[in-house]
């Protein structure tokens, strides 16, 4: 970054924070700025559950209703540059439930544009395949984005900006995010409702592994696995500070997720401003105890609430949409997660 570069992302990092990340050895002073922001614990939050029996429904309408319930208004979104981060991992003709459905991404883009967003881009750094364009094409997202004239950006090959790790749960002293975040006002995790064989579940927080460029973290992003998956989930969220989360639970995945599990219809979209609360609600929809999910235990009452009484539930009641997602007891991260 040159001195003439605009400071384009006040909601993400200041120029000072980014520069401080380049010299992580001296990260203490500047890095603490971001860290202190997160020392104010988020004790309450609201989440919205919208019923959507299939992808044929008017999903944009469901999302707009969620925005209204959550107080997301055109005053807040007007002029904002929105980054939608879907969950694209790999593709299989027999397993379309691996990835965030293209029509959910379309609905999210429409809902933000309807509120006056200046720009919506979709960006992802798939963790398993270097051929992101193939994943984009085979998932069906390419044709949807082309029809809607929504740009797609491949995070894996983007130049990085180094930021001090504001979470401090893993041994990583800094995290390298795509430079795209300098030009982003709102980061929106558009995740999938899935079980996961290493993390127990993969929802809006784990989805943000895809913000980390493969050219720095590899394929798979093994550097994050070595540093601790659960800890890195918390670190990435604490540092990236996402603004909103949407989970595609119309058809999710149960069993041996995130790629080899079986489809599970839950018929819901789950939304909220706080990723921890959204993931806790999503876990309950899957009849999973969020207090037993390691990364949610780490995040609780710091990044957001997990306890049900601290999450104001809008839209459908959890009990009315709850579906027991199959868990594999032989997989250690899934053992004992069932909500009794």
């Amino acid at each position, binding site marked *: 970054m040159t001195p003439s570069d605009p400071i384009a992302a006040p909601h993400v990092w200041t120029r000072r924070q980014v520069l401080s990340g380049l010299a992580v050895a001296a990260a203490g002073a500047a890095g603490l700025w971001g860290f202190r922001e997160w020392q104010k614990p988020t004790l309450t939050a609201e989440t919205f559950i919208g019923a959507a029996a299939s992808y044929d429904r008017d999903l944009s309408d469901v999302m707009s209703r969620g925005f209204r319930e959550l107080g997301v208004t055109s005053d807040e979104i007007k002029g904002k540059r929105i980054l939608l981060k879907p969950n694209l991992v790999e593709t299989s003709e027999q397993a379309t439930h691996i990835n965030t459905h293209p029509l959910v991404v379309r609905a999210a883009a429409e809902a933000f544009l309807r509120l006056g967003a200046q720009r919506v881009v979709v960006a992802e750094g798939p963790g398993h*395949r270097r051929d992101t364009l*193939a994943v984009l094409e085979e998932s069906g997202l390419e044709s949807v984005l082309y029809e809607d004239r929504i740009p797609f950006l491949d995070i894996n090959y983007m130049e990085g900006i180094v930021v001090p790790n504001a979470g401090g749960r893993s041994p990583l002293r800094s995290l390298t995010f795509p430079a795209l975040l300098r030009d982003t006002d709102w980061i929106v995790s558009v995740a999938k409702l899935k079980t996961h*064989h290493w993390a127990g579940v993969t929802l809006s927080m784990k989805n943000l592994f895809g913000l980390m460029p*493969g050219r720095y973290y*590899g394929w798979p992003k093994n*550097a994050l696995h070595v540093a601790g998956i659960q800890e890195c989930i918390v670190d990435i969220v604490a540092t990236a500070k996402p603004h909103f989360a949407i989970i595609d639970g119309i058809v999710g995945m149960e069993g041996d997720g995130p790629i080899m599990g079986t489809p599970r219809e839950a018929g819901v979209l789950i939304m909220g401003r706080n990723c921890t609360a959204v993931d806790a609600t999503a876990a309950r929809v899957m009849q999973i105890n969020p207090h037993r999910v390691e990364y949610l235990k780490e995040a609780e009452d710091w990044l957001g609430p997990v306890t049900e009484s601290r999450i104001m539930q809008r839209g459908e009641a959890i009990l009315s949409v709850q579906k027991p997602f199959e868990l594999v007891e032989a997989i250690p991260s899934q053992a004992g997660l069932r909500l009794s």
Partner: protein
Amino acid sequence: MDSIRVAMNSVEERTVSKGGFALRQGGHEQPDATAWACVLLAAARRSLPQVESGYARLAALQADDGRVSVDPGHVETIWPTALAVLAWRSSSAYGQQCERAARYLLETSGAHWPQFPRSPLAHDTYILGWGWTEGGHAWVEPTAMAVMALRALGRDTHLRVRSGVALLLNRQLSRGGWNYGNTRVFGAELRPNVESTGMALHALAGLVALHEVERSLDYLRERIDRLSTPLSLGWGVLGLQAWEEPVEHLEDRVGDCLRRQEYVGPYDTPALSLVLLPLVRSWPLWRGGQA
């Protein structure tokens, strides 16, 4: 074909003033973009001054221990080292840099450990290969690239190359093909992908018998006509060609792939160079700069 000429010109135009090539026009120089552009343009005998400056730029990026990283702030990202060797091997002036890179590759391995009896991972975690980053586990693509680089320097029979070959064979899926490098996890066999399969087959050609990889060639043969993206098509073609299997209508296929840029936007330099490479270079990457 016009689209191919335009694409070659596009790669040339991505040179940056301090030497090397950017991922996209107007971007900063990146070592992988530089290496792939040099491999392509040297094979096509085009833009030789820019190619020379690319070699020099890669040499300037090489650390004292021989590694070439994505950028100086990320010294742990060692995967461009093998790519740099493949680029330098198109010139006779960078023998010293190649040797330093080879020494680094031979002294470096991905993290490995004895296979636990009840490990959820089916592959042999103890075989030495190469990872994307220093300290990471060994994976298929960085191992295949390191095997190619060391072969390009005449180390075909080195113990580490033999170990890399063993790793690749161990990570081959039972139904054919490779993915990034996991075979079975918690008892489920994972799916292959074309780019990893093509790269592994390209690296293994001439080192293993046909019957050892026949099922993966079958996978590629079955997929090749449906590929439209540059990484998959490029590595798919290179994988088959290394085993002397022709790909029909190659120029048309590449032309179709290039035209997709009209709606997905310009391909990055490594992808663009890769998909063009089979049109200008008929010998494998591990054979160095000469046919």
